[in-house]
């Protein structure tokens, strides 16, 4: 391939990326304007919280428990080498509260809920259901997009708390398999160095992750114009782009939390 062609391809790719970011920004602005306008769609929001939160709970609980167990098994080996196995519970709780719980819950939601939102809205677009809402004098954006963004934003912090709890439970099970540590002592050690700043800001940052997942997935589904082929593409893209976005945003939010709560930066 001639070098000029490579440059042209790169330019085209960059242009599409910038277009996408710009369009997502405009979509977010539209959402921010519409979220405060009546009707507030409480019923739709509750329905979406059930779909995004309640129905994701089994996945979050099983994944969190398994990861807590595996993490404890790996961490214990290392801590034993330094004679610091008493720190086991503390490491587990700090790891889950500050990073693993929020990020893993976010990635699981991007996979399960993001794909669902992207596919559902793209299917509604392809089968003219969104047009049908518009011709009935109903604001389809308000009815379909806003509840999904709000629901993801509200449900993810709650799922993160569940993830943290079962992660600690998994860690205790791994610890119990090798020692006689009681639950009370395990919890006492787990929360020994955990203050509210180590728990609340990382948990609340998942509200931003949730909003980003809802926003990106809704954008990709709502604006698709490729018919049936666009449904699969919207679902896949929703997962990929949402996952990438929350990892990148996590970097920024972690720095922001360190800046605002210096005691959390060890």
């Amino acid at each position, binding site marked *: 391939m001639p070098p000029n062609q490579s440059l042209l391809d790169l330019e085209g790719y960059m242009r599409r990326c910038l277009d996408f970011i710009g369009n997502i920004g405009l979509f977010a602005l539209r959402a921010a304007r519409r979220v405060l306008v009546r*009707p507030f769609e409480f019923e739709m929001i509750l329905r979406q919280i059930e779909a995004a939160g309640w129905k994701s709970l089994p996945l979050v609980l099983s994944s969190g428990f398994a990861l807590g167990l595996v993490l404890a098994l790996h961490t214990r080996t290392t801590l034993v080498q330094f004679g610091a196995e008493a720190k086991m519970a503390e490491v587990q709780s700090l790891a889950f509260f500050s990073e693993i719980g929020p990020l893993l819950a976010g990635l699981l939601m991007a996979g399960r809920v993001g794909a669902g939102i992207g596919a559902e809205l793209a*299917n*509604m677009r392809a*089968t*003219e*259901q969104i*047009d*049908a*809402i*518009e*011709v*009935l*004098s*109903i*604001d389809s954006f308000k009815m379909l997009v806003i509840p999904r963004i709000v629901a993801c934003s509200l449900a993810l912090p709650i799922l993160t708390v569940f993830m943290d709890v079962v992660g600690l439970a998994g860690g205790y099970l791994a610890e119990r398999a090798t020692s006689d540590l009681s639950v009370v002592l395990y919890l006492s050690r787990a929360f020994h160095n955990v203050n509210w700043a180590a728990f609340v800001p990382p948990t609340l940052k998942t509200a931003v992750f949730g909003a980003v997942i809802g926003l990106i997935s809704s954008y990709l589904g709502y604006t698709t114009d490729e018919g049936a082929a666009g449904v699969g593409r919207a679902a896949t893209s929703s997962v990929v782009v949402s996952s990438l976005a929350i990892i990148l945003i996590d970097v920024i939010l972690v720095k922001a939390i360190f800046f605002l709560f210096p005691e959390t930066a060890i």
Partner: protein
Amino acid sequence: MNSATPPAIAFREVSRSFDGRAVLNNVSFEIAEGETFCLLGRSGMGKSVTLKLTIGLIQPDAGAICVQNHNIVGMGEDGLSHVRSRIGFLFQSGALFDSLSLHDNLALPLRRLREKKPEEEIEAIVQKNLDDVGLGREGRKMPAELSGGMRKRAGLARALMLSPSILLVDEPVSGLDRVTASEIDELLLRVRKRDNTTMVIVTHDTREARRVGDRVGILNNGNLIAVGNIDELAKDQSELVRALVSDSQ
């Protein structure tokens, strides 16, 4: 058409392109209040686009589209919403909402009205509209449980929920057997007779155009090449027009 009464729908030199391909090219026509206007033409000639332009789902590149004397080109969301509240739209596939039962599909537009109606009144209107299209006992069913003909009838019932004065119908009988197609045509005729509804019907079926339409327009390559009643068009100079209207003769 009475010259003192403004047309229900007027297209004035409307053009629209997609990806550089002209789908409509300087198209002009008027439809009187209470008239049924059928659009005939081969696939991909801009018939469905014309319907979507009429209700503001697509904006034209040029020209004016007046619906009951309101130019909807460039109109804001609130204005469009007001105009749409007087227009019903039957989509080709019915476009029923998958996640709602048939009953809730019909109730949705009434439940979303700014002036809230009591639930009992909504129930009564939904049941009446379902009865009108012969689906009175199917209200609890989900759209996936309905046949193609039932979906079209359900779509028609939903389109009539807000008692529109204009009904836009996209290929109401495509993919249906003759008997079911006749039933749909009967429903449309009954609605027109009962409510004096202005209708624009996109169809491939000349028999339907003859049965339901007052006038027929022929779209070809983005141009409205002929307008008239179907007997006049059967004698048109254009071979294409004669071929399109004589399919079922």
